[in-house]
């Protein structure tokens, strides 16, 4: 038997040999440049704090990165079914579990790549244009648990939390991908839930039912903790609590994907 890494290599090939992936990467590269240039052209002051600009651009970019990874995730399994390539993929001397795992690992690597590109560019472009600032008063609010810490720590945690949110949503898209034969349906449904999620959180925040804090969407916005708040303001949850809830959802989504994928009859 060949080694498992080769399966991941295959999945990577199927991601990076596609035009759409390079369009996505191109957009992730362009946005920080465009936003900074637009700021220079439109703002009167022509000066800004590099950290604050970085955070602003990161917030914009991460919702895009999430959509991009969701598209790739939703297409990952369902796409193989809709094109029929799943048949030639599954008749190899590998268990279905290994093949599914290799797909998920390739997705994680893709999301890490996009996040790293995002970090490097948003930091690089803004530091180049506005210079390196040591003033963090505009970046870290006074009531933040990280008040007084370095901007590196703050931005580092910001990225980590954004990425955890992303990977939970990706696990959800991946689950839909294993459940549906059509990649269009899997992509559409995942993105709908991604947007519906913030509306659901808004609706939930007006109730006081105790189960609300266990709902996925009440825990997704981890970055709220960085600024001394909560994802849903009227529930005083902690980071540890939200991380545990997300971990449970993450595991459940993956167990469902795995169960469906392993048992499914391939008749397409």
């Amino acid at each position: 038997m060949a080694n498992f890494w080769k399966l991941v290599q295959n999945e990577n090939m199927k991601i990076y040999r596609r035009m759409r992936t390079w369009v996505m990467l191109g957009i992730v590269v362009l946005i920080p440049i465009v936003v900074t240039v637009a700021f220079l052209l439109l703002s009167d002051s022509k000066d800004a704090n590099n950290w604050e600009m970085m955070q602003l651009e990161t917030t914009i970019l991460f919702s895009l990165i999430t959509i991009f990874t969701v598209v790739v995730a939703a297409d990952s399994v369902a796409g193989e079914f809709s094109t029929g390539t799943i048949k030639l993929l599954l008749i190899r001397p590998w268990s279905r579990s290994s093949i599914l795992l290799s797909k998920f690992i390739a997705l994680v690597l893709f999301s890490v790549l996009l996040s790293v590109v995002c970090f490097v560019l948003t930091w690089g472009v803004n530091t180049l244009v506005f210079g390196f600032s040591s003033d963090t008063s505009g970046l870290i609010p006074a009531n933040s648990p990280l008040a007084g810490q370095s901007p590196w720590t703050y931005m580092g945690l910001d990225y980590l939390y954004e990425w955890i949110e992303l990977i939970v949503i990706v696990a959800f898209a991946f689950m839909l991908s294993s459940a549906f034969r059509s990649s269009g349906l899997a992509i559409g449904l995942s993105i709908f839930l991604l947007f519906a999620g913030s509306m659901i959180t808004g609706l939930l925040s007006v109730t006081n039912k105790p189960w609300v804090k266990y709902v996925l969407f009440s825990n997704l916005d981890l970055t709220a903790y960085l600024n001394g708040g909560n994802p849903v303001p009227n529930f005083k949850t902690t980071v540890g609590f939200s991380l545990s809830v997300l971990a449970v959802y993450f595991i459940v989504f993956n167990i469902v994907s795995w169960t469906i994928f392993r048992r499914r009859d391939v008749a397409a």
Partner: protein
Amino acid sequence: MSQVPVARLQDVTKRIGSRTIIDRVSLEIYPGEVFGFLGPNGSGKTTTIRMMVGLMAMTSGDISIGGHSVRTHYPQAAAQVGAIVENPEMYKYLTGYQNLLHYARMNASITRERIDEVVKLVGLSGRIHDKVKKYSLGMRQRLGVAQAVMHRPKLLILDEPTNGLDPAGIRELRDYLRQLAQEEGTAVFVSSHLLSEMELMCDRVAILQKGQIIDIRSIRGQAASAQQQAEEALFDVDRPEAALGVLQGQGGGRIVDGLLELTADRNEIAEVNRRLVEAGIRVYGIRTKTKSLEDQFLEVTGSETIG
């Protein structure tokens, strides 16, 4: 054949809901034989193949390949199998070569040299670095064959392999499959509804109808025994009535569509010919009406519609 079978299907049954799609199918496939799997559309050929390659689970029964059960030791069983299930669907955004590389990576035994060798074998050398979306159906079929034989499987499973191939391609494939079976001892399992194709290609055929095997017969053996058997012979002569008179009813001679038809074995045919010529009748041609597999197939399956 006293050899150990490469593949053994034992009472394989597939039920979906209350419908029994495949009903207790049992067969054995031996090294070096080309085994045909015949059946009308909807008889369950593809479902059986899907179960053999692990794409579908069986309801009961078992399939073992090279002694490994597809149910319990799938990777070990799959390592011995190369297959095309229905159309060879490839990644269209990759080149032919990248597609092969993809499958090669999943099997430790395949080297880059082996990929090149197989590409040459299926005659795709000139176009292998083109994207698959630019390939014709015939070229995709060739690429499908390449991915199926790359790792030198002990069992090669091809579902309707001649789909989309031109006559030259079909002939090439047929020769190649026979060569694989004879020289490398590969067991080749081919499904088709094209009876004449199967007749030329296979050593044995199983006939499947409504999910049940209704007959397994040897084809080559039959062709050999047919030489001794009496069969229908057609004589193309200038004066059929006169010829009939000459023969005086031998072999139940009769005139069909202006041709003289009678039942005779090889020696008798030669004898009839001699007598006709001696009587001054001009013989333009003689041919025998071998019962084709198609006739036999229709005989066995009846003229029933898809069930």
